């Protein structure tokens, strides 16, 4: 598909059953999935423990404003890249996600092809790699 990633550490935040398993298998050739959570309230704690380079965040997790969660991640962990995933193909929403600090906006039905590419893109903007 594309050149092998430098084993980025990825944390998955998605509450749909089966998504963690599928994304872990999808990403396995390219990066390390270091954890997955289905409760956005534990997101900051998980980031502190697992030290991911990238968080793949489902914007529609229950009980939390996904954009606000993205802002919180970036304010506490500015070096962590956030890739926002959503089923909503809304250009304005993509702009809002970028304003909230997201590195990329991936539509869920394009996850298979676009997620690895999005993770690769974050590599070039990670301060540690600069």
């Amino acid at each position, binding site marked *: 598909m594309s050149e092998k990633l430098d084993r980025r550490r990825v944390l998955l935040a998605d509450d749909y059953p089966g998504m963690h398993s*599928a994304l872990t298998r999808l990403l396995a050739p390219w990066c390390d999935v270091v954890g997955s959570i289905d409760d956005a309230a534990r997101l900051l704690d998980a980031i502190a423990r697992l030290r991911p380079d990238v968080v793949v965040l489902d914007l529609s997790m229950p009980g939390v404003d996904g954009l606000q969660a993205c802002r919180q991640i970036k304010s506490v962990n500015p070096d962590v890249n956030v890739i926002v995933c959503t089923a*909503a193909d809304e250009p304005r929403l993509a702009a809002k996600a970028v304003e909230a600090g997201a590195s990329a906006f991936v539509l869920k039905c394009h*996850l298979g092809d676009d997620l690895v590419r999005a993770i690769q893109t974050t590599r070039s903007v990670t301060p540690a790699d600069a």
Partner: protein
Amino acid sequence: MDRTEDLLRDLGRRLIEAHESERRRLSGELHDNLGQRVALLSAELVILRDTLGSSPLVVDQLDQLLAHTVDLGTEVHRLSHDLHPAWLEHTGLPDSVRRVCTDLSRAYRIPIHLECVDVPTGLSNDIALCLYRIVQEALHNVVKHSAAASASVRLEAHSGEIVLTVIDDGRGFDPLVEGAMNGVGLISMRERTRQVDGSVVLTSQPGLGTRVQVRLPLVGSSTGDRRQATPPKSALEFV
């Protein structure tokens, strides 16, 4: 008479609330369940394609399956959004209305022009949802029944009110013909505007298109003055 009017208003409010609640439930089911299953399916197809990547024929067929799956996901989202604009609060009324115009314009191959002038960002949910639903209903009538070559939508806020105007150049109709104004869509527009103290005027003539104009008072929005006008007794008028 006032008591009857109050009862009718309350009944209308409850009907609209029940309608919105059911739409929200269906929309959530589509988004949270069906949409997620389609996303999962597309991810699994990519994994399968990458696993069986040695055969160009298999890869080609899996790519076709993937394309159909992506189309299915797009359609599920469109239906979900149609039923309940979950992102109206985030994206705002102008962008949400733009989405409706673009979707219908593409689906029915009819130019729909949108103009938004001074629309406040702090619109209440009631007003934003009311206007959004009326745009949906009015444009649905345009593309389904009017045989119009083009249509336009204008949203403008001024002097303490927000005015929505939807115009088409289609076949129009005679509002005085019995039953012409009794469609569920038109009744829904009337009830929705009445709930937010607004008015709707529908103008049409055979061969001369149709114009729907909705005026809602802006109460407590970021740019609107408080309109003190008495709510119209009969919210649906026609000229």
